[in-house]
């Protein structure tokens, strides 16, 4: 090997070494800044899944009227296509259900079915709360519909389409978007608003005697959209009575009802949360004396 | 002449004696004989309450708070009462028990009874006939001293011996 070749080889070797070193030091590479670890918002709510996925349609959505009455035995594939343009998911499938009434849904106040549903749905949600288990799709399907049968509607392979749809036709005229349901946080906010409005009247209630402050009374309230009471509040439960204070129970019941009636009608409550599940059309108030 | 002189002498002697025997009202009466101590005033009948009260150390003994014990001072007083009671064995007496106001009404009735009986028992143990002794409790109803202080209360905690005649 002559001198020129040696020099050339040497330069090449040095260059390779330099290049190798530079590369290994990463001087030529563009370092992508590592994305910061994403902070995951953890909300300590025991039913995280429910609100996010299957909204509990306790007020069944308004029946979307089919243009024509169909035979209940019709294949569900057809209704699936028809339902797509519907704005409200999941659209009820009248064909899969018993034939809907030809007349428009009777103009019942939308909260009427909701009144019954909370009683029926109360127990299952409590069970869910105590188990704190992530609800399965099947459970969501069952409770979301307000029925617990999970009756597989006709449609076989398209059974998922029926999720959230009850076996009975909905008589509701609710136009509220089903996604605008009352989250736990929204419910707390509304409860806080209502409590602030009735607090002055609560403060005026007179304690009948020693020990009465141990009694708590639950009253059931139904309101119109304008915040006025429908009928009289009804006492639906109480606790904290014993031999020493049971004589004061009736008076605490009076106080609870008076607290609400004297600060009626309620004002400035959001209309869009009126007749949603947990809406302020129908709720309970728990009252007790301080001490 | 000698017989006239004799008659005159006899008459004079008779006159002298008769005038000497005549009731002559003295200018002042000699003092009436009575008890030597009393200068003046009504007499104290022996065996009476007044007689008792001036003969003994005291007709009253005192007690400590909530107590009915006969302390040494009370013993001396009761002993002096025993002396007099022996002298007058048929005179009935009553023993009154009293309390101070710093107790409840019914309890004080019972405590006054205790005090009266304590005094009675002491006298009986020294030979006084129990049949002549009655007891009565006044609780806190008849205080002697009216203040609301220790000195007044001490005076009111007492048993009083009353001669009944």
């Amino acid at each position, binding site marked *: 090997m002559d001198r020129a070749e040696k020099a050339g080889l040497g330069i090449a070797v040095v260059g390779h070494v330099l290049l190798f070193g530079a590369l290994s030091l990463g001087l030529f590479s563009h370092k992508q800044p590592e994305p910061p670890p994403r902070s995951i918002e953890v909300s300590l709510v025991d039913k995280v899944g429910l609100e996010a996925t299957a909204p509990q349609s306790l007020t069944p959505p308004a029946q979307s009227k089919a243009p024509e009455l169909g035979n209940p035995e019709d294949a569900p594939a057809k209704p699936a296509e028809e339902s797509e343009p519907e704005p409200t998911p999941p659209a009820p499938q009248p064909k899969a259900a018993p034939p809907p009434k030809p007349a428009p849904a009777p103009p019942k106040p939308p909260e009427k079915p909701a009144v019954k549903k909370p009683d029926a749905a109360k127990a299952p949600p409590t069970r869910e709360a105590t188990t704190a288990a992530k609800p399965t799709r099947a459970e969501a399907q069952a409770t979301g519909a307000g029925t617990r049968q999970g009756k597989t509607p006709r449609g076989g392979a398209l059974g998922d389409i029926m999720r959230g749809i009850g076996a009975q036709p909905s008589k509701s005229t609710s136009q509220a978007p089903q996604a605008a349901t009352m989250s736990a946080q929204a419910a707390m906010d509304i409860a806080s608003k209502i409590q602030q409005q009735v607090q002055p009247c609560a403060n005026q209630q007179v304690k009948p005697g020693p020990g009465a402050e141990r009694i708590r009374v639950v009253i059931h309230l139904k309101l119109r959209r304008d915040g006025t009471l429908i009928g009289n509040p009804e006492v639906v439960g109480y606790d904290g009575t014993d031999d020493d204070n049971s004589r004061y129970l009736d008076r605490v019941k009076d106080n609870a009802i008076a607290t609400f009636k004297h600060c009626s009608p309620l004002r400035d409550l959001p209309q869009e949360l009126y007749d949603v599940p947990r809406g302020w059309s129908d709720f309970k108030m728990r009252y007790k004396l301080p001490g | 002449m000698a017989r006239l002189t004799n008659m005159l002498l006899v008459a004079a002697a008779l006159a002298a004696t008769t005038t000497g025997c005549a009731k002559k009202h003295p200018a002042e009466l000699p003092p009436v004989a009575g008890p030597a101590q009393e200068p003046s005033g009504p007499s104290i009948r022996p065996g009476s309450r007044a007689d008792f009260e001036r003969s003994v150390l005291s007709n009253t003994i005192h007690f400590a708070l909530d107590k009915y014990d006969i302390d040494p001072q009370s013993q001396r007083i009761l002993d002096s009462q025993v002396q007099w009671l022996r002298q007058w064995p048929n005179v009935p007496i009553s023993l009154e028990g009293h309390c101070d106001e710093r107790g409840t009404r019914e309890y004080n009735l019972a405590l006054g009874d205790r005090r009266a009986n304590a005094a009675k028992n002491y006298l009986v143990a020294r030979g006084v006939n129990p049949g002549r002794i009655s007891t009565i409790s006044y609780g806190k109803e008849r205080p002697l001293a009216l203040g*609301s202080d220790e000195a007044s209360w001490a005076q009111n905690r007492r048993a009083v011996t009353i001669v009944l005649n």
Partner: protein
Amino acid sequence: MTLFRPMLIAALLAGTAPLAAAAQQAASPAPVAPQPSAPAPQTGSPTPAPGQQPPGEMIVDVVGGTSAPAQIAIPPMPTAEVQQTAAGSTDVLGRELALIVTNDLKNSGLFNPVSGEALHNISYPEVTSPGFEYWAGAGVQALVQGFVRANGDGTLTVGCYLYDTYARSELTRQGFVVPPSDWRRAGHKCADMVYTRLTGEGPYFDSRVVYVSESGPKGHRIKRLAIMDQDGANHRFLTNGQSIVLTPRLSPDQRSIVYMSYLNDRPSIYVYDIGTGRQRLLVPDTNLNFAPRVSPDSRWVLFSMAVAGNTDVYRVPLAGGTPQRLTDAPGIDTGGSYSPDGGRIVFESDRSGSQQLYVMNADGTQQQRISFGGGSYATPVWSPRGDLIAYTHMQGNFRIGVMSPVGAGERNLTDDWQDEGPSWSPNGRVLMFFRATQGGSGVADLWSVDLTGVALRRIPTPLDGSDPSWGPLRP
């Protein structure tokens, strides 16, 4: 586990909720978050975790109230037609009746009646068509209206109506027909109707009190038996003061008064017959007997007798008979009082060295001490509703106190130099006692206080007084 953390936090919040809520009492409310309280439901309704809203429903928690006396208005009671009666003219009676109701409710300490110019006269038709707007606007929620009518036969009819002006509704009504001599009782019955409806307590205004009226110097008090309505009206002396009288008690059947007298220098218990005005010796024993109390069925008299310096509790039939001894401790046992069912007796004894409270069966068995606090305890009385025993607590001062029948929860209701001898109202809510002042010119007077410690007040009597005994509710 993270899922339990919200419950823990909310429970801590719940602990502070009563404090925050108490701060809101009767004051202008500050906006606060809902105040949850630790739930312990007994009615089967579901209990969401505090601070949480359960799925499917919204719950609003509200804590609020005041212990201040309730506002109430009692206008004069009109009459349709002014008529003269043996008790007076009906329009005057109507004004007086409203005052009786007003004073009863005010003196209970639980009500604040409107007075003065705001309390205007009402017309007869307005009695059943109340001016809700006016009273609700004035912030007076409770309204009592009534009327007076003279019946043809000499009796009077008094109508009594209670309204809720905020709810615009009638709460209750009652009518009373009374002979003219008892016209004031109609007012007390009306007050009782209002009181029971608005508090839940039993009635007590239509009742009487016997006590010892006192006069004269401290060293030689004149003491006379007296009886009066609980509001001080219809006062009557029953003895003339020549003998000391002590501790009178009304029998539950309201026919007799048992008391102790020094008549003939022989302190003993007598039974005074209210109907005939005559009295008889109850216990034909020369021993000192005192501290009488009648059993709830009016058949027995509990009393104390001192024999040779030892005092025990006995009982004897009210009609007379052989006394039966119930205690035999060497100490002083006195002051017995029956439980409302007549099955047990509370009394005081110094067998432990100081006066303390004991409970035993009505036959004298199972005597157990129940007082263990500092100081000593005396004059126990069992509440007519059975839940408490009141007494004189002596620890420096003499104070009126209450404790449960097993001796728990004792507390003093008064705090003065010498408060003594409590007696319960028929509903077990108010205590009457006597308070003595110090010194040579000291006197004793009747006072009363509510169980909660409010409404401490002096009872007006013509002279001074002691040893009050509250009789039962009149039928």
